[in-house]
């Protein structure tokens, strides 16, 4: 049943959703869909040898599950505009995850109804691992479709030429050395997806996140829609596939590779993504990332060094389809 803007009450809850127990096969299927084959999300023996209890469910998988759930909440007409997810705990294979949320604020902007919500993933042991926020575009009762086409805050040209000033002041910090501070602003290489978005790529991703929304899986429905073709689920856009032989895995953000001194561990701290245009079957995406901040945060046990990067994703017409901010935390 379609949810309408007029019917949403601030403070009310979103209809929750559960997945699981999630299996190793679920993780392999998602890894295959996004061309990500790291041992930590696939190889039980590797995980045990490295001190984990089981194979870890990946951050992008959990974020994609949240997107898939929110896509159900907004119904056939609505869209997800923005999502912010923090990774605060480990989830393993064999766990059951539940997504919950509360509508916190609603407002109309340029004739569109926006609703903000607090969201989270909680596992069967009560661990809240993915708290976050989302902004949803919910139709009003007089709307039978929404044209998802928004002005981005930057163009591709502005993104890659923007000056980011840095100043090296604390000469005693053992993590934030002069070389590391100078990495702020460093730009990764631009990367074009290896082929235009095709149906099997959409199928793999939708099967990987248990997504059945008509605009992603029903070719006839999509042909008859105002868009005229299948589109990619939003979460797929922020996870680039492998290139060909000369390119490696780029992950969420293709920033230059570097090591923060006196750190040995890197974990996914979270991601914030906002979408501006839909990605249609046949579109070819190009993306480029840069480091926008590196700082030290004192943790309870040890220092955390978040490396913050931003990625711009454009289509073949150089239109911005999404901006994504990734936090990668380096630790001693």
């Amino acid at each position, binding site marked *: 049943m379609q949810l309408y803007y007029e019917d949403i009450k601030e403070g009310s809850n979103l209809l929750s959703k559960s997945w699981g127990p999630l299996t190793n*096969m679920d993780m392999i*299927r998602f890894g*295959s869909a996004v*061309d990500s084959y790291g041992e930590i999300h696939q190889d039980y023996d590797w995980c045990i040898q490295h001190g984990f209890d089981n194979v870890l469910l990946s951050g992008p998988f959990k974020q994609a599950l949240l997107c898939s759930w929110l896509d159900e909440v907004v119904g056939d007409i609505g869209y997800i505009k923005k999502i912010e997810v923090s990774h605060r705990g480990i989830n393993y294979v064999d766990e059951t995850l539940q997504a919950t949320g509360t509508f916190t604020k609603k407002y109309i902007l340029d004739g569109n109804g926006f609703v903000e919500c607090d969201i989270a993933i909680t596992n069967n042991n009560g661990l809240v691992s993915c708290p976050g926020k989302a902004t949803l575009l919910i139709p009003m009762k007089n709307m039978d479709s929404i044209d998802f086409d928004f002005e981005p805050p930057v163009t591709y040209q502005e993104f890659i030429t923007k000056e980011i000033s840095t100043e090296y002041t604390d000469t005693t910090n053992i993590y934030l050395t002069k070389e590391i501070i100078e990495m702020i602003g460093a730009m990764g290489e631009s990367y074009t997806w*290896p*082929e*235009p978005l*095709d*149906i*099997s*790529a*959409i*199928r793999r991703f*939708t*099967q990987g996140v*248990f*997504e*059945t929304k008509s605009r992603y*899986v*029903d*070719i006839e429905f999509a042909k008859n829609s105002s868009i005229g073709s299948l589109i990619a689920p939003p979460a797929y856009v922020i996870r680039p*596939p*492998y290139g*060909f*032989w000369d390119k490696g895995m780029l992950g969420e953000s293709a920033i230059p590779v570097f090591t923060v001194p006196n750190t040995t561990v890197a974990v996914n701290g979270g991601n914030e993504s906002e979408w501006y245009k839909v990605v249609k079957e046949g579109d070819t995406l190009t993306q480029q990332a840069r480091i926008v901040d590196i700082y030290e945060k004192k943790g309870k046990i040890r220092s955390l060094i978040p490396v913050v990067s931003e990625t711009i994703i454009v289509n073949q017409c150089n239109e911005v389809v999404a901006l994504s901010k990734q936090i990668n935390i380096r630790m001693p």
Partner: protein
Amino acid sequence: MVEQEQNYLTPEMLSQIGKEGEETIWPEPLDKSSLRRFIQATRDDNPLYHDEEYAKSTKYGSIIAPPFYFHRSFPSPLGVVENAEKEEMRHRGLVDTPGFAKQVNAGSEIEWFGQIRVGDTLTGKTVVSNIEQKEGKSGPMIIITSDRIIKNQDGKLIAIVTSKSLRRQAEGTSLF
């Protein structure tokens, strides 16, 4: 006096010779991201399979799939998310051999008759051609021979795969 081998081939088992499996079909026409995944997985850098310009200069005129590509799985189509892999299993457990549930692939012989191109949709259908018993080092085995006929969307024969499935004694059903 030579001890006679026990015959495990029941009339029910033997009646399955000639049995036809359901026809399975690829969930979508072959597209480039499926092809890329396959050639990356098999470490096959032949430009005929991924370089449009090179492929144009060959007698094939466009990119073709590696010969073994037809062996890709037959996953569930777009929109089916529960047990997405189950569909590809459907043609395998065609013959039930109760008491011989431990099955392994004992090899196959393949003959090709045509190429697979981007845009093709292949179908596969399996026919059981023989069921026999043999004595192995670890005991009796049942060997199922089947022919899998692979065709493209125009009905053109692409390949015939003759496979042997070897079953060893174990409780349970060999169907899955």
